[in-house]
């Protein structure tokens, strides 16, 4: 070979499709390394009451040594966090096709309204009659989500999707108990999110694996065989994690219901259904939603989320306390006295700040906008599928909804894996897709563009994926050693796990 393709300075590594140019981001140490005694980033107001003597008041309970927090001035703090921020990729910068995670645009008005003083500064224990504004927001969001899902009742309390699963399965268990038998097991397809089996386990259920059929969907015969009098529920993601709608969904529900088992729907992919079909209409008994997916609340680098749980009327008595109830005068209050409730799943009422954002999103869309959003998400995924299916292996030919899952079969023959292609995508100015999930597809590339991508951005992405496929044929090393354009190159995860360093020590 004449040139070293691994050298990031080579043309091939640098010159991708033209979307990206390197730019300056100043190096930045840890905040602790910038500290020096006596620098200040704050000024407290003058104390208008007599000062106190800490040692006198607290005695042995007084802190003797100050915590080793950094000491910086305000401008240094601004620069520190601004510089860190420039090392992140974000939906505001470009396409973020992380399948199953639904990285859609997070409207700015959501942030603005969540910070309106009367909402942002409301104490959770303010008396109900002084909280009618908050309760009005919560009530409207509840009604919207019930309508969108086609269910009968809802709780907004769960703090995230997995927390919603926990709450939903608690409802399932409480209902079975009320029928005289909690039952022993939960069926979970092998294509499910890892949170599903983890949730079933913490609710005291045995997890029974359900193998997917040749199309990646539920195998009805296997289901029929496996459902018995000890099956509490099936936890089903619909559309599934390979982006396929379970067209036999009503039969699935019938098989379960005939044996007294319930159908739980993981609503992670609800963004493929809003305005087009409703889980409540196709036999789902209980489900969770991810407000940070379908309803545009920001992911913020990993949270906060919000995971409302919607259910049919027969599960309503078991919802967590408190529930919102209307007064005769039209006002609202929190109701606590519900003897059949599964209890509380978190303090207060849930991630109210996320409710405000989700409702702002629903208001901005209206019924027509919500439907168009779903249609565009599905259109985008199918467009990508069409434009890439000749270069990447499509393990399941079933029609795609909001995401498309390829495998690295053809590229793996050249020694290039899905993880390598993902890293190379970074050099082309995109966040990678979801790597190696779902587990039923070996070497999965799970691509979910969402509705937020323009045709121009989609074409750039397609061009990048096709260029990488060519690179795999011609210069596989270039792909295997990617990314070449980032602040840090591939990080040593083995060292991080073998000798964990989880905090700075001066």
């Amino acid at each position: 070979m004449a040139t070293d393709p691994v050298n990031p300075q080579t043309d091939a590594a640098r010159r991708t499709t033209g979307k990206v140019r390197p730019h300056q981001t100043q190096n930045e140490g840890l905040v602790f390394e910038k500290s020096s005694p006596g620098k200040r980033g704050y000024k407290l107001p003058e104390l208008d009451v007599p000062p106190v003597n800490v040692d006198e008041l607290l005695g042995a309970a007084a802190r003797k040594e100050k915590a080793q927090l950094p000491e910086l001035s305000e401008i240094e703090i601004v620069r520190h966090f601004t510089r860190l921020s420039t090392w992140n990729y974000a939906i505001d910068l470009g396409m973020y096709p992380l399948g199953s995670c639904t990285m859609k645009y997070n409207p700015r008005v959501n942030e603005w309204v969540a910070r309106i003083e009367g909402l942002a500064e409301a104490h959770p224990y303010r008396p109900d009659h002084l909280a009618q504004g908050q309760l009005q927001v919560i009530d409207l969001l509840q009604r919207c989500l019930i309508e969108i899902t086609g269910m009968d009742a809802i709780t907004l309390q769960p703090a995230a999707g997995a927390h919603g699963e926990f709450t939903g399965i608690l409802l399932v268990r409480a209902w079975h108990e009320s029928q005289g038998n909690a039952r022993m097991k939960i069926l979970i397809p092998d294509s499910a999110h890892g949170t599903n089996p983890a949730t079933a386990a913490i609710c005291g259920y045995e997890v029974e694996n359900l193998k997917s059929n040749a199309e990646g969907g539920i195998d009805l015969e296997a289901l029929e065989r496996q459902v018995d009098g000890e099956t509490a529920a099936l936890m089903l993601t619909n559309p599934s994690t390979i982006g396929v709608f379970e067209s036999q969904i009503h039969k699935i529900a019938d098989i379960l219901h005939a044996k007294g088992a319930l159908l739980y729907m993981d609503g992670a992919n609800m963004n493929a259904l809003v305005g087009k079909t409703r889980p409540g209409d196709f036999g789902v008994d209980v489900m969770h939603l991810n407000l940070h997916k379908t309803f545009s609340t920001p992911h913020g680098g990993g949270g906060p989320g919000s995971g409302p749980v919607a259910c049919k009327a027969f599960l309503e008595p078991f919802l967590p306390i408190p529930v919102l109830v209307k007064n005769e005068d039209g006002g609202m209050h929190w109701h606590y006295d519900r003897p059949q409730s599964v209890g509380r799943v978190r303090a207060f009422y849930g991630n109210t700040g996320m409710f405000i954002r989700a409702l702002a999103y629903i208001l901005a869309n209206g019924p027509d906008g919500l439907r168009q959003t779903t249609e565009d998400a599905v259109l985008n995924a199918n467009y990508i599928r069409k434009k890439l299916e000749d270069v990447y292996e499509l393990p399941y030919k079933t029609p795609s909804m909001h995401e498309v899952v390829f495998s690295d079969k053809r590229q793996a023959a050249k020694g290039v894996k899905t993880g390598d292609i993902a890293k190379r995508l970074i050099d082309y100015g995109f966040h990678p897709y979801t790597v190696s999930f779902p587990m039923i597809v070996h070497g999965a590339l799970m691509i979910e563009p969402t509705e937020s991508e323009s045709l121009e951005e989609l074409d750039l992405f397609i061009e990048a994926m096709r260029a990488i496929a060519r690179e795999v044929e011609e210069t596989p090393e270039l792909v295997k050693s990617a990314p070449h354009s980032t602040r840090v190159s591939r990080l040593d995860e083995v060292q991080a796990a073998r000798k964990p360093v989880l905090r700075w020590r001066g």
Partner: protein
Amino acid sequence: MAYPTNYRYTKEHEWIVLDGTTGTIGITDYAQNSLGDIVYVDAPKVGDAVTASQTFGSVESVKAVSDLYSPVTGTVTAVNEALKTAPDKINEAPHETWIIKVALSDPSEWEKLLDAAAYEAFVSEETGS
């Protein structure tokens, strides 16, 4: 890598070698290879009971975790403390790096395990090669 002929093997990819009624247990080259860089070994304590075909611990790589199944029933007499700081020894020399030693309560269990040839045949069947 050749599988020592004086060892016996399980279908879950553990090996055992016998010295009197004490068995020394580790994981096979195939197992370490499919896991990748091992970062952590979760082993039982000396004195713990282990049961044939039941889990007694786990080995972890960065993105995977694999349960360890005991080839035999008995009591743990020693645990390889070196693995706490250097789990990578398993990657370097899987057949020389033991995880636990067990006093067998039923030495006849040895007979039920796979010998090197049978294990090798099993592995090539699994990999489809």
